[in-house]
């Protein structure tokens, strides 16, 4: 084996090792999920929901009267019966929210 060939083999081995190491340490990224919060009987169900950035949350109004999700950082449209509103989680944090129309309806969205 020539010096040149030996060097090439060494580089190949090092590259393979580095690639393997990278592959092993990289956490597999979870694909975004979609969650549904039902608004039923004047309650948000579930009352507390934990999601990851990039996940989608759909609020669906199953009551006969309109509801409107209102947090500090986001606000839905007014949802009549059977209507829904979709929100994609874009920033980490705890987001307590209420129904703007019925302010004693409270729930929380936690984004990791």
């Amino acid at each position: 084996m020539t010096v040149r060939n030996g060097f090439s083999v060494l580089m190949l081995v090092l590259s393979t090792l580095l690639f393997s190491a990278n592959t092993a340490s990289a956490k597999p990224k979870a694909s975004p999920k979609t969650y549904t919060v039902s608004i039923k009987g004047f309650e948000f169900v579930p009352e507390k929901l934990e999601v990851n950035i990039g996940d989608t949350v759909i609020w669906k109004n199953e009551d006969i009267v309109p509801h409107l999700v209102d947090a500090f950082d986001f606000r839905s449209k007014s949802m009549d019966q059977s209507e829904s509103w979709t929100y994609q989680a874009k920033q980490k944090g705890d987001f307590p929210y209420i129904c703007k129309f019925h302010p004693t309806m409270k729930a929380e969205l936690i984004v990791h």
Partner: protein
Amino acid sequence: MMKQKLFVFSCAVALGVVALTNNVAYAAEGPSDPQIVGIVLAADQIDIDYGKIALAKSKDKKVREFAERMVTDHSAVQKSVIGLAEKLGVKAEDSSTSTALKSGAVDITAKLNNLKGKEFNKFYIDNEVSYHKTVTDAVDAVLIPSAQNAELKAALQGAQPLFLKHLEHARLVQSGSGEAMSH
């Protein structure tokens, strides 16, 4: 003069509550399904009418938001009750309770029409607290147990959270908070 007026208004609210409570006690004998529909429609319409007066007279943001909600929500309930009654073939009937509710509302409406500004806001919200408390008690103690039709009973049970949330909302406005969270 102001104190005298407030005293008169407070008495009116108290009398209204007593009258409604007595009606509820009377109704404990058990209204029929058509009478239950009549009571719910009357109670709903009364609160819609109070809300419309508040929207016409009040400039207070929290009072107006609450009044708007009462008109919207009770109109939706009204529509739902009428639809259910049609489906079940139940025709609303008057009863001593619905008649007393309506006659009590005449007095309250007259007082609402005569008041202005802060006095109006206070009387309206105080009455809403009393009214929703009475209605929620009546739904629990009289209407739900008396309902014979399973769908009507379920509809009353389904509507109860709405009346309770309205009561909580009215108490928030009454306490001066207006909203559960500051925005």
